[in-house]
Structure formats: C-alpha cells, structure tokens
C-alpha cells in the first residue's frame, strides 16, 4: 500500500470489512440513524472516499466499486424524477439498501458480542480427556472377525516391540516369500492352530515379521490358511486349510 503518510489522518480502507461496513462508519460518524437516514446523504461521502482512495492508488476491492456504482445510480435517479416515476412499481433500491444496512449492522453487533464470549472462553481450559487411559482396555471385537486392518495393526504392534528405535526405515533384506511359505508349510498342520508369534519366533526382527506377515496374507488370499484374532493387537492364530501348497500354481 503506497499511502506515503498522506493518509495518516484518513480512514484506512483496510479497517473496513467491506462497503457496508464503510457506509455504516460514515453514517455513524455523522451520528445519523440507519433507519431514518436518506442513504443519498451518505452516498456522496462514500463516493468521495472511494475516489480519494483511487487517487492514492490504494487497492480497492471490487465490492467497494460495485457499491459506488449502485450509489451513483441512486443519486442520478433522485435527480431524474421522470425515471423515478416510471420505476414506481418496482421496489426502491434505496429502501433495499437501507434494509441491508440494518441487517448488516445487527450482525456486526452480534459478532462483537460473540467476541466478548470468545475472550472469556479462550481462558477456559478443558482436561485433555482420558481416552488414552481407557480405550485400549475396552475396545474388543468379536472373536473370529479378523479384518485386514486388524492384521496390519497386529503387525505394527509386533514390529514396534521388536524395533529398537522406530525412527528409521527398514532396509534389512526380507526373507523371500517362498522361504517363509516353506517354513509355514512345515509348521502348520490341519489339526491344530498355531500362533503367529510362535511361527516367527519370540525375538524375530522387524524384517522377519514383515516377511512372514506378507506370506500369511498371500496364503489367506489363496485360501490355504485361515486366520483369527480375538481382539485388536492380539496374536494372530493361523490354521491350515488345505493339505498341499503349490507355490507355482
């Protein structure tokens, strides 16, 4: 904004929330009543103001200019009684503008009342809530309803426990799918279920857990095993469904 100090004593367009706000300011400055004021009296001042601002190369938002055009039209209508008579059946734009000003003024006042509420309630603080203390204890899903997501979460949980510092990404080579499958092939029987943590070993590192997990997803997809989990983060229980696993199929 290039006011160069010339506008020091002037009103700054940035202080206003739009043309209605500026109009209200002009009305109030002259201690006029919005409900009775003939808008034409203020229109002149508004136009002067916009003209000056334009002369100063101030950046004027389009809405101000639209309002200026409207006010100019109103003023010219006042000067042309003929046109005024012709337009008699339509509504007087001046009245509309006045109603608009009253409405806007009311909202402006309400907004400042809300501002008071805001300043009181900004000083009010709420306890953070105790979800963290309780949620895990109470979220239980029905047994046998293992979704892909719960599987993922279980993995996450196990992987986290085993990871020394979770800051870095894994770059360890993973076991191949075939390797994992052949281990599981030996481990799983048609008769009894097996826990995932047993399959990978108690202290398996993250890469191993990931490899086995992917293998399990693949086996589930092929319908060769089923998985169950009694609640989120619980161990995944695997059961063999088919006798023969042909990886190349």
């Amino acid at each position, binding site marked *: 904004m290039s006011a160069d100090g010339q506008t020091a004593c002037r009103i700054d367009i940035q202080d206003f929330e739009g043309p209605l706000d500026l109009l209200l300011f002009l009305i109030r400055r002259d201690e006029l009543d919005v409900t009775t004021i003939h808008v034409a009296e203020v229109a002149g001042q508004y136009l002067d103001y916009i003209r000056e601002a334009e002369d100063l190369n101030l950046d004027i938002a389009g809405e101000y200019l639209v309002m200026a055009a409207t006010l100019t039209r109103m003023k010219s209508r006042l000067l042309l009684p003929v046109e005024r008579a012709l337009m008699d059946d339509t509504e007087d734009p001046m009245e*509309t503008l006045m109603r608009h000003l009253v409405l*806007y003024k009311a909202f402006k006042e309400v907004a400042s009342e809300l501002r008071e509420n805001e300043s009181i*309630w900004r000083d009010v603080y709420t306890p953070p809530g105790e979800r963290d203390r309780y949620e895990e204890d109470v979220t239980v899903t029905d047994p046998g309803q293992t979704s892909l997501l719960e599987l993922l979460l279980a993995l996450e949980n196990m992987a986290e426990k085993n990871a020394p510092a979770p800051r870095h990404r894994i770059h360890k080579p993973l076991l191949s799918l075939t390797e994992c499958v052949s281990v599981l092939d030996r481990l799983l029987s048609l008769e009894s279920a097996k826990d995932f943590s047993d399959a990978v070993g108690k202290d398996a590192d993250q890469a191993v857990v990931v490899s086995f997990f992917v293998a399990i997803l693949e086996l589930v997809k092929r319908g060769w095993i089923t998985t169950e989990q009694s609640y989120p983060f619980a161990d995944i229980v695997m059961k063999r469904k088919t006798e023969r696993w042909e990886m190349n199929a």
Partner: protein
Amino acid sequence: MLDQLARQIEALLVATEEPVTVGRICELTGCGTESAEQAVLRIEAELASGGHSIVVARLAGGYRIVTDPELGFIVGQLFEGKRHSRLSRASLETLAVIAYRQPATRAQVEAVRGVNSDSAMRTLLERDLVKIEGRQETPGRPLLYGTTSRFLEYFGLNKLEHLPRTNEMENLLKLSAEDIERLASELSGEESDQII
C-alpha cells in the same frame, strides 16, 4: 463430601473429551435425570467450597468440567504457541451469519456481508467451527454450512438458542429473506463455476 453418584458424574465430566449430556450421564451411571441434575449441583457446591480451580460448564447441550477462566493466564502458558489466535472480524461476522441463518450457503453469507467471505469460511472450516451440511437443491447445488458443537463450546454456549438476541435476529432475517435470496442468487450465478 461428595456421595458416590456425584463422584461418578464428576469423574465423567473430567475424563470426557466433549460435553456429556444428562441423558448420557443417566445411561452411564444408571440414575434418573433429576438425580443427575442434582448431583451436578452438589459437585459445583463442593468444588466451590473447597476453593478448587475447576468449575462445571454447561456447554453444547451437556456438561463438562473446565478450569476457572480466572486462571487462564496461568494455564495458557502450558499451551503457548499452540493456541489458536482470536478470530478475525471477518470470521466472526461470517460465523454470526451462518449461526443465525443455518444452513446457509456461502453466497447467502456474502449477500449479508456484502463482501467476499471465502477465506473467512476456510478458517472457520479449518477450526471446526463450521461444517458442511450438504448441498442446496438449487441450480449450481451450492454447499450448505452450519455451525458445529465446537462452535458452541468455543463461545461458551449451551445451545443455539442462547446466541445473543435470537428473536431479534430471527425477525430481521425473516424481513430480509427476499433481499438475501436475490443478492445470493446474483452472487452464486457469478461463481457457480467455482463449485464442483
């Protein structure tokens, strides 16, 4: 000395993440509405007589325990830098129009304010004070906005009817309904290509 029911309710009002309605209190503690309301009064009395720093607030249709605003200058330090700034005047005005007029389209807000309210609207959405409630079944299908329960909490209101000057504003809006619609339809005609 608080009785068992009051203790239970107090714990709920401390631990909750959002105001708890009387109905929910009854459900969780197994008491009746009247007993719940009286227990809340006993909690308030006991907190006051012990000179405690917390109070029961009636917000967004429910209760929750909050710190005394008088101590805001101390507690606020805990959240320095994390605290939201106060709302701008543009945001407050926009919020006021939405609050009384809801559900309202952006064009309706702009019709009342006489000025573009895009960025104010964005701030309000971001701060969860306003939410999208659907679309208006008119040409262009503009989005409809309403206030959230966070809005009520933010201004310490229990319900929408507790907004300042509800009746007066309602009447005013009724009187200017046509004006607003006319201006709004002019505005949304100009902008319909902005909305997908």
